[in-house]
């Protein structure tokens, strides 16, 4: 049987028992990729030779020794392209390793390839990629979610054992929910952003996409912790995220926010979530209704803060120093204009314009500043709620995966796909999404567990308890 279907923990046991050699593992994965990726299109660059070379030298005594990891295409890996799924970065080869990549390397992981995404992480469907769309492994006519859709699809289709994604407003959790895998957004500052191409600097976090909760804990352990190269990175050392796995959740209080179960939510998603919540109650948790009164403003606040930051973050892509430059321009202004016109996709341009507008003279107070004030309120909502519970349970997304093209022309509908995940980024909290059921048509449904800042152990503990007492995570897409 192929090793591609294993989890990190299973593989680590087998590697240490010498039941498998890292090279065999890479070969298994390459086989799986060549058989399913033509349909899924999760990867945009693959480095089979480099991975096989690394597998030969892998030190399996290290925590992730010999384990292949896929990386979203906006994280810098020395000597590799880092296109962010954008034409504007065509030809750019990153000259340095992101902190998370350095850490993966020193943990013994093998870098297998780069996964598709929405251009510059702007999107919820992985349709906004200059290199084509990724398909949902459970239904190839549907989106995998986004923006880390390539990473989620790769893990769900067993083309990767685990992957790194990034989450600015739900970009790890929502695709994890759509693809039926586990996705964790760490607390803001938990993982260094050095080497992560910035979309919205105050919201972005790198996190794991895995097949199980325990794998998410393991991968997070390898990448988290203080980094002097990121001023916003938490100087506290990262704890052992696996420490509480297996501990009972009896006696724990879980908050159920009433604002998250209102009209607009898909009935099958609502039913599955409620059932998961009862299941958690059955495991001994106490449920408590809580209120997050400013929930309704989170999408508006997010799209001002995120686009404002993005408008500055993406200004550097001008064709002057690296990447693609428009040809045959007469002067500087034309070079700037045409490089960006040709290099950026529609959604990216839309967001740069929105953000530029929000920061403009005369509008700053009404938009950016007010959005930041709302953000403070949202944060306070959560702080108040966490006085009464240890974690909050919600659906990850109001709907299961939608059809490719279905929302492409309706940005507002697309933005609403992140309605349950955005507030977590605005408040800087941690949250995990894990499978909690399927629709009748066989689409995965995700459960979101939100924790206070620096409480990843708690959400991992709850998620693990749920996962180990259900079998959603054991199901595989047929890919036909």
């Amino acid at each position, binding site marked *: 049987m192929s090793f591609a279907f294993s989890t990190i923990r299973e593989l680590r046991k087998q590697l240490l028992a010498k039941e498998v050699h890292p090279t065999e593992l890479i070969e298994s994965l390459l086989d799986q990729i060549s058989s399913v990726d033509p349909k899924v299109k999760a990867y945009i660059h693959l480095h089979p030779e480099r991975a096989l070379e690394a597998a030969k030298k892998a030190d399996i005594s290290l925590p992730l020794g010999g384990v292949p990891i896929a990386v979203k295409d906006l994280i810098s890996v020395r000597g590799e392209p880092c296109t962010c799924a954008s034409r504007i970065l065509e030809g750019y080869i990153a000259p340095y390793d992101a902190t998370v990549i350095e850490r993966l390397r020193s943990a013994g992981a093998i870098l297998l390839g780069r996964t598709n995404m929405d251009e510059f992480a702007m999107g919820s469907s992985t349709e906004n990629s200059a290199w084509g769309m990724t398909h949902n492994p459970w239904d190839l006519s549907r989106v995998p979610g986004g923006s880390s859709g390539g990473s989620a699809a790769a893990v769900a289709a067993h083309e990767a054992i685990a992957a790194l994604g990034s989450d600015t407003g739900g970009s790890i959790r929502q695709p994890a929910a759509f693809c039926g895998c586990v996705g964790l957004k760490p607390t803001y500052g938990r993982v260094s952003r*050095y080497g992560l191409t910035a979309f919205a600097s105050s919201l972005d976090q790198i996190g794991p996409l895995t097949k199980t909760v325990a794998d998410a804990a393991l991968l997070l352990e390898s990448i988290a912790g203080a980094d002097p190269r990121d*001023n916003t990175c938490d100087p506290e050392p990262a704890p052992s995220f696996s420490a509480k796995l297996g501990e009972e959740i009896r006696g724990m209080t879980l908050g159920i926010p009433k604002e998250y179960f209102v009209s607009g939510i898909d009935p099958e998603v609502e039913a599955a979530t409620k059932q998961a919540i009862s299941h958690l109650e059955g495991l001994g948790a106490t449920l408590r209704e809580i209120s997050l009164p400013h929930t309704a403003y989170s999408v508006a606040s997010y799209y001002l803060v995120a686009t404002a*930051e993005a408008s*500055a973050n993406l200004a550097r892509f001008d064709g002057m120093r*690296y990447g693609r430059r428009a040809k045959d321009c007469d002067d500087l202004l034309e070079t700037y204009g045409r490089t960006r016109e040709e290099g950026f996709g529609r959604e990216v341009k839309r967001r740069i314009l929105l953000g530029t507008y929000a920061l403009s003279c005369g509008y*700053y107070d009404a938009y950016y500043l007010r959005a930041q004030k709302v953000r403070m309120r949202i944060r306070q909502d959560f702080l108040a709620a966490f006085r009464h519970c240890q974690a909050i349970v919600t659906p990850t997304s109001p709907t299961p995966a939608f059809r490719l093209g279905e929302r492409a022309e309706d940005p507002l509908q697309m933005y609403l796909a992140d309605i349950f995940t955005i507030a977590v980024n605005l408040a800087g909290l941690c949250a995990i999404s894990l499978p909690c059921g399927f629709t009748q048509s066989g689409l995965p449904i995700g459960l979101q567990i939100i924790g206070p800042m620096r409480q990843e152990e708690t959400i991992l503990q709850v998620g693990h308890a749920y996962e180990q007492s259900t079998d959603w995570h054991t199901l595989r897409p047929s890919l036909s």
Partner: protein
Amino acid sequence: MTYEAVIGLEVHVQLKTETKLFCGCRNEFGAEPNSHLCPVCLGLPGALPVPNEEAVIQTILTGLMLGSTIPPRAKFDRKNYFYPDMPKNYQISQYDQPLCLGGGVTLPVLSFPKDAQKEAQALANKKVRLVRIHLEEDVGKSFHLESCSGIDFNRAGTPLMEIVTEADLTTPEEAFALLTTLREILRYGKVSDVDMEKGQLRCDVNISVRLAGTEAFGTKREIKNLNSISAVRRSLKHEIQSQIELVSSGGAVVQQTLRWDDARGETIPMRTKEQAHDYRYFPDPDLLPIYTEGRLREEAARRVPELPEEKKSRLAETYGLSEYQASVLASGPPLADYFEQAARSSRNPVAVANLTLNDYLALRQDSPEPVSVPPEYLGELADLVSDGRLNSRQGREVLAILIQTPRPPKEIARERGLAQISDTQALEAFCREAISASPKSVADYKAGKAAAINALKGFVMKKTRGQANPQRIHELLELLLREP
């Protein structure tokens, strides 16, 4: 009708740090182009800034030296505009919460241009108020070659401090004085060498004119990027003149940004108000706020030196120097320190000051190699001269040798046979010889030509190979010539 100018300055000063403001690349002028670069200062995707604490301390130190308030919390903002020499197309700067607020600079007489030091404006001891001081990153440098342009990013990301004055200045000379005073203080604090040639001080000036005695400001024009103190003075003279001509002939000044062509002595328009940038400042989410209380402020306070004006009055008082002597000696801490060490090993500090200012500085300047005379030798030499054991010409001679081979001045004088002859008996013999050898001079002197005595003195100096004490010869000759 007379008009007056209203002038405010924005002074950009490059800080003297080992590394750049947000990365570990070296902050060094004149290196091979594009040799001090990394992902951060090149603005590569994913690179993040981390503030250089030393630059923050130097900025706070500057604020403390200039009497600014240091707010407990400061932050960095992004200033957005596109320019090829700016890698991120935004500049990390400080907008509404700078490191220093307020403060001021008093303009001493000697900071004015030499030709204006006797004017009332130079004697007024005016205090120019500061608005703020903030810290930002510098941009790269563009070079326009024949068929293409190139950019050197070595300067990109180096720390730049901006000092903004109130519009308190009214003349080009005051602007000149402000910059000279600032330069001295910044050097005292070791925050910058303020080397104009290296572009370590660059200045934007805002100018408007109004009828003398009126309150309302006229429309201002801004001249950008002046890179020397004298260019500031020249461009202001020109701009004030042209604004006055415009206004007094019934025209109106249009808000404008200008560039100064120093060679041609004229301003060139860059952009008008309509073309002004909207910089869309917002707090940089990559950088935490800076809390100044505690370590940062304490370290800055620890480094506050004795300031130029304090040093001048202390030198004048302690050593009995003239204001001029004290000012020149206090023009830089190393010279002042040198003087004080020399003065401590001497009985006559004024003689040390004279020797330092009249002879030592000149000799040092003329020497092709950097030279130094141990200060205690200079003090000893000053004593030899003031005690009359060497005359001043002999003093200079010893100093010239000292500069080449530092040895105790007494030794040099002895070896060279340099000693002033003050012995009356010895000198009397020479004087009598002079009188009998120059009957004409004697006759002239006796006829009332007092200057004729100089010829006799010259005779004695020649005979003694310059070693006679000139004061003593003069006294003796006068005495002998009065003999019947």
